[in-house]
């Protein structure tokens, strides 16, 4: 197998006495969708934050394409191919939906230290952005201010912004949380299409979606990975059921 895209080695993080990441090892090869599940407060978001650089681990190592990135800034990791969505939607509220994505395209296409020509007239940025909006089904909302679109649309917008970064790995923190049924189905369908193109780490509570999409599932409880394996084995794991999963979710 080729070199993994993302590798976590003995990752540990404590807030005072509270250990929120407890010796986590994880390996995500190219094209794999790795789902991270666990009860609220298990430390999923904190783990994602450490991977993306929004939080720094107390110990351990994070490798991106073989390179140690443990102490690199968020921006530096992003430039090396990490893209993420946040559990709490994070967009540029005053810009239009199109401008949000165009700014993301801009991050990957030439210098942003250009002071004279209008960015809004750069067809290269706009066309690419429009393409990504079409991919996530947001093209009709292109000219709406991003602060005014629905919650589900913001989730989709975040994914579009991540896609145009041409990432090596996508980190998605509960992309379906708080979205309506239709929207979450749309995002599931989108993830199914994206699967295989990128390595993806997906934190999600929607078990149907997780088991439908994941190549591998890791279960996090109190900061520890208590089980990791293909969806079928996780589904049958008694410890996992006891610790976390309600039986009705597997009906």
């Amino acid at each position, binding site marked *: 197998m080729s070199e993994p895209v993302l590798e976590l080695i003995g990752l540990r993080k404590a807030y005072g006495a509270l250990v929120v990441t407890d010796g986590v090892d994880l390996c995500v090869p190219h094209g794999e969708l790795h789902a991270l599940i666990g009860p609220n407060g298990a430390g999923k978001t904190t783990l994602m934050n450490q991977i*993306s650089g929004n939080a720094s681990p107390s110990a351990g190592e994070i490798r991106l394409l073989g390179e140690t990135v443990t102490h690199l800034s968020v921006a530096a990791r*992003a430039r090396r191919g990490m893209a993420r969505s946040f559990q709490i939607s*994070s967009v540029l509220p005053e810009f239009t939906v199109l401008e949000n994505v165009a*700014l993301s395209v801009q991050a*990957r296409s030439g210098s*942003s*230290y*250009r002071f004279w020509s209008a960015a809004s*007239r750069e067809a290269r940025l*706009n066309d690419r952005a429009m393409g990504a909006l079409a991919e996530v089904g947001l093209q009709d909302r292109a000219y709406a201010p991003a602060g005014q679109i629905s919650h589900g649309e913001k989730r989709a917008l975040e994914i579009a912004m991540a896609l145009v970064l041409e990432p090596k790995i996508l980190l998605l923190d509960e992309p379906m949380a708080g979205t309506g049924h239709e929207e979450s189905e749309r995002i599931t369908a989108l993830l199914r299409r994206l699967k295989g193109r990128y390595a993806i780490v997906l934190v999600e509570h929607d078990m149907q979606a997780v088991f439908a999409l994941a190549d591998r599932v890791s279960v996090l409880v109190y900061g520890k990975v208590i089980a990791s394996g293909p969806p079928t084995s996780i589904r049958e794991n008694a410890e996992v059921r006891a610790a976390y999963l309600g039986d009705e979710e597997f009906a």
Partner: protein
Amino acid sequence: MSGEAGALPLAAPAVPRPRAWLVGVVIFCALALAPLAVPFVGGNYLLLIGSRFMILAIAALSLDLLIGYGGLVSFGHAAFIGIGAYATGILAVHGFTEFYIAIPVAMLAGALFALVTGAVAIRTRGVYFIMITLAFAQMAFYVMGSLSAYGGDDGLTLPSRSLVFGSAALKSETVFFYAVLATLIIVTLALRRLVASRFGRVLQGLRQNRQRMEAMGYSAQGFQLTAYVIAGAIGALAGFLLANSTEFVSPAFMTWQRSGDLIIMVIIGGGGTLYGALVGALAFLSLEEGLSHVTDHWKLIFGPLLVLFVIAAPGGIARWLGWRAHE
């Protein structure tokens, strides 16, 4: 540079609203015609007031780049005016009176001060940024006040206004007025382009949501420091003009009160619109002028008025008129 027309129809938002640039055109036209009124009202005093307004408007515009677009509330912007003014004055004392020497030197001095102090200040945020920019400006204030060779606290009188290729044309208040107006228009148009450029978008993005911008790979500090340096250079350009206007330079040019006045201009006008800074400077100076004729304690009236205004019209005059920021 790539400025090819977009293939997409970049549809204007549906709601029609007063175009901000129209206000700019109106202000510029009114200014261009103002000297015609000199024989009837105010005499040269009118030109002096007009020049002073435009000079402070230039400084306010550059501060709007920081506050309105970058979210960087600098409380030390008067320092750049002072540095530009002192650069001009000191050069003049030593016989360098050509504008084409004074302007680049003044702007470079402002840019350099911005680069050095900004590199420290930009590492802080919010209130700390306000405090540290204030501290650096106070430092510049005291340094200039201690330059006994250049007048110390008493200031420095310029031997003359800057020369234009050997000519003393700027001696004429009318010519000087138009030179300032031309500078104001150039600065306004250049900043309009800047805020709409790739760089301008990044700067605004960082104000709206730094976390998101960093997740895209933008390093905040480089962009913010660049904006700070540009604003510093333009502030120093205003200082060059101010020194020429009064033919005098003193540490009083760079008091923290002046920095505060500039912030107030941006806030009254509405940050993040540029034309708002123009309107804000005009409103501020008119109020100052009007109230100071009524009473010496005009600031006692002005302060509460300002608070009321900010409560009544958050977003300033610009938002009041329905302009969208960063339009």
